[in-house]
C-alpha cells in the first residue's frame, strides 16, 4: 500500500483542503485501497515554500498559488487576468485544457508532477466604507491586495493598494488600517470579514488566481504501472473539476448566506469603469505575451484568445 502525505496551508475546513481530501478519497476508491493519503496536521512549509516542499519530498501532495513565487512562472499568469469567468469550474477546466496543450510542454513546473491546475471564483472589490462604482471611487479608498496581475493592474489604475498576506486582512480591515481588499466571495466567509459592507463585481471577475495541485515526482515514479494509471485517470480535468466545484459551492454560500446576513451591498462596476480597466489591462497583456514568448510560448495572444473562448464554451 502507498501512503501519500498531504500538506495544506489553509485550515482543514477550507474548500481547498476539503477538495484535496475528496481527491484523496477518489484515489483510494479508484485504486481499491492500494493508495491513500495521510493529511499532515500542520503545513510542511509556508505557502511560498510549498512548491519546493513537494519537489524536495517534504510532503507528497499539496497545492500552491503560482503567484506566491514571483518571477518563477510566466505562462500561468493568464489565469490571473480580469474578466475570465464567473464560475470556478469553467475557468478551471478551460485553464487545465490550455495548460495541457500549451504550457505543460514548456516545463515551468519542472521538478514536480503536476496533477492539475485550477482557479478560484471571480475576484471582487470588497470594502467597509462605500459603494464603489467607478475607478475614482476605488481611488479614494485604501486596499489590501495579494500579488500577481492584479498588483500590476492596480498600480496602472493608480489605486492606493498595499501588498499584505491574505490572513492579515481581518486585522487590517477590523482596525480600519485598510478600507477594503480584493477577494473572491468565499474569502469574506473564510477570513470572517464581518466588517465588509460593499462589494463591486465585474463580469467575469476583476482578477483571478492560478493554483497548481501537485505530487512529488519521485513518489509518482515509484508507483506500479497500474497505480500510475489510476493517478493519471483522476489527474488533469478531474482535478480542475473537483477544486472548481468546491470553490463555486463556497462562493455561493458566502454570497447567499454569510454576506447577506452581514448586509453586504453588491453593485456591478459601471460600463466606463470596466472599459477603463480593459484599457489598462491591454498593456499588461502585451507585456505578458512578450514575456511568455521569450519563455518559449508560441503565439501567446492566440493562446489567450483560445483560453477565453474555451471558458465561454464551458459556461
Amino acid at each position, binding site marked *: 500500500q502507498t501512503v501519500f502525505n498531504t500538506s495544506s496551508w489553509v485550515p482543514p475546513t477550507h474548500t481547498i483542503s476539503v477538495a484535496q481530501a475528496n481527491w484523496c478519497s477518489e484515489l483510494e476508491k479508484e485504486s481499491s485501497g492500494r493508495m491513500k493519503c495521510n493529511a499532515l*496536521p500542520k503545513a510542511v*512549509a509556508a505557502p511560498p515554500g510549498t512548491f519546493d*516542499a513537494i519537489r524536495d*519530498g*517534504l510532503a507528497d501532495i499539496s497545492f500552491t498559488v503560482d503567484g506566491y513565487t514571483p518571477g518563477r512562472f510566466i505562462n500561468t499568469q493568464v489565469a490571473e487576468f480580469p474578466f475570465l469567468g464567473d464560475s470556478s469550474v469553467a475557468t478551471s477546466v478551460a485553464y487545465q485544457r490550455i495548460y495541457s496543450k500549451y504550457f505543460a510542454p514548456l516545463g515551468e513546473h519542472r521538478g514536480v508532477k503536476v496533477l492539475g491546475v485550477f482557479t478560484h471564483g471571480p475576484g471582487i472589490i470588497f470594502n467597509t466604507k462605500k459603494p464603489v462604482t467607478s475607478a475614482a471611487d476605488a481611488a479614494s479608498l485604501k486596499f489590501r491586495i495579494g500579488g500577481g496581475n492584479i498588483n500590476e493592474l492596480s498600480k496602472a489604475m493608480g489605486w492606493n493598494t498595499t501588498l499584505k*498576506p491574505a490572513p*492579515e486582512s481581518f486585522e487590517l480591515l477590523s482596525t480600519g*488600517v485598510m478600507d477594503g481588499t480584493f477577494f473572491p466571495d468565499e474569502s469574506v466567509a473564510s477570513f470572517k470579514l464581518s466588517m465588509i459592507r460593499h462589494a463591486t463585481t465585474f463580469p467575469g471577475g476583476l482578477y483571478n488566481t492560478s493554483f497548481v495541485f501537485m505530487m512529488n515526482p519521485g513518489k509518482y515514479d515509484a508507483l506500479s504501472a497500474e497505480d500510475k494509471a489510476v493517478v493519471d485517470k483522476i489527474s488533469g480535468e478531474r482535478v480542475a473539476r473537483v477544486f472548481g466545484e468546491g470553490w463555486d459551492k463556497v462562493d455561493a454560500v458566502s454570497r447567499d448566506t454569510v454576506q447577506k446576513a452581514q448586509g453586504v451591498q453588491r453593485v456591478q462596476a459601471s460600463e466606463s469603469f470596466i472599459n477603463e480597466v480593459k484599457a489598462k489591462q491591454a498593456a499588461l497583456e502585451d507585456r505578458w505575451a512578450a514575456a511568455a514568448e521569450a519563455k518559449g510560448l508560441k503565439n501567446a495572444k492566440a493562446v489567450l484568445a483560445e483560453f477565453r473562448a474555451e471558458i465561454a464554451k464551458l459556461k
Partner: protein
Amino acid sequence: MIEAFLGFLAVFTMAFMRIPLAVAMTISGFVGMGLMRGWSPAMASTSQVIFETGFHYVLSVIPLFVLMGNFVAKAGLARELFTAANAFVGHRRGGLAMASIIASGGFGSICGSSIATAATMSRVAYPQMRAHGYKDTLATGSIASGGTLGILIPPSTILVVYGIITETDIGKLFIAGILPGVVAIVCLCMAVVFVTWRDPLAGPPAERFNWTQRLKAIRGIWGVAVLFALVIGGIYGGVFTATEGAGVGAAGAFFFALFRGALTPRVLMDVLVESTRTTAMLFAILIAAMVFTNFVNFTTMPGDLRDFVLQFSPHPIMVVVVMMGIYLALGMVMEELAIVLLTIPVFFPIITGLGFDPVWFGILIVTIVEIGMISPPVGLNLFVLNSLLPDVKLSAIYKGVIPFVMADIVRLGILIAVPSIALWLPSLMGR
C-alpha cells in the same frame, strides 16, 4: 509517539551536555526528519525553515518590541515604575518583590516581550532586593515570573503570533489581556505573601514612604502612560496594525530616550547591537524549534494528542482542562513558541468546534506560555536571569520560581472558571 519521545530525549541529553539549546533542537529535528522522511527532504525542510523564518515580515515584531524595551530601559522608565510601586508596598514583608512584580506589569504595558521585561527588571529590582537582604530565591522568582506579564499585558508578541495563526482579532486579544494581567499581578503578589509567611527572612521589609514621597513617585510614570496610549491607542484606533505598532512603539521609545538625554551615539549603537543580539539568540531558538516541530509533525504525536483530547468531548470544559494539562507537561520540556506552533493547528479547531471563544482560548494559551517560560528545567526567563545574574545559581532560580508557578496555575484555573475576566473588556468594543 515513540519517535517524538526519542526526539525529546535526544534534545535533553544534548542540552545537558551543554550544547546550546538551539543547536540541540536543530540536530534532533534534522536527524529525526532524516530518519523518517529521508535525508534530502530533511535538508530541504531545514533550509526552507531557516529562510522562511528569517525572511518574515510579521516576525519583525520581535526585534522591534525588544528594541522598544531597551530604549525604554535606557530612558529610565523601568526605574521610575519600580520606585513608584516600591513607594506603596516596599515597607511590607516581601514588599520589594511585590513592587518588582507590579512594576513588571507596568513595564509589560509598553513592552511586548517576556524576556525583555525580565531582563530590564532584573537590572532595576535585583540590586535593590539584594541590598535589602532578600534571598536570591525570592528575588529571582519574582523577577522571572513578573517578566512573563510582558506577554500577557498588551502589547504582546505571543498574542500577535496566536492571532496570526488562528486568524483571531489581535486588537481584541490585546484588550482581553488587560484584566487577566491584573489578576496575574494579584496572584503573584499572593505568592510573595506566602513565601515570606513561610520564611520571613526571605524578604525583610524596606523603609516606608510617606504620602508626599508616594505622590512624587507616582508622577514619575507619566512616560509609561504616554507610550502605552501611543501603541495600544494606535492599534485600537486603526492607525496601524499590531505588527506596525511594534515599530511605532520603538520609535516612540527612541524619542523618549533621546529627549531625556539618555542617548549618545555610542549608547544608541549599544542599544541597537544589544537588541539585535537578543533577536539573533531568540531566532536561533525559534528556527531550531521550527525544525524540531517539522519533525514532530511527521510523527503520530499530534494525532495521538488530538484523539486523547477528543475522548473528553462529551464534557467540553474537561477538554480544555486536559489540553491545559498537556500544555503544562509540554511546557516543562519544550520551548514555548514551538508548542504553540505545533499544537494550535491541532487544538484550535477542536476548541472552536466545541463553541469556546477564540479570544478566551488565546488568553489561556498566553498564560500557558507564561508558565512554560518559568517552569523548570526549560524556561527561557530562567535562563535569561541566569545569564544576567552570573553569581546566582540556576538551582536557586529553579527553587525560587516554584511558588510563582503554583500561583500561575491557580490563575489559569480562575481564567478557565470565569471566562468573563478575559472577555468582558473586548465585549465592550462592539465590533
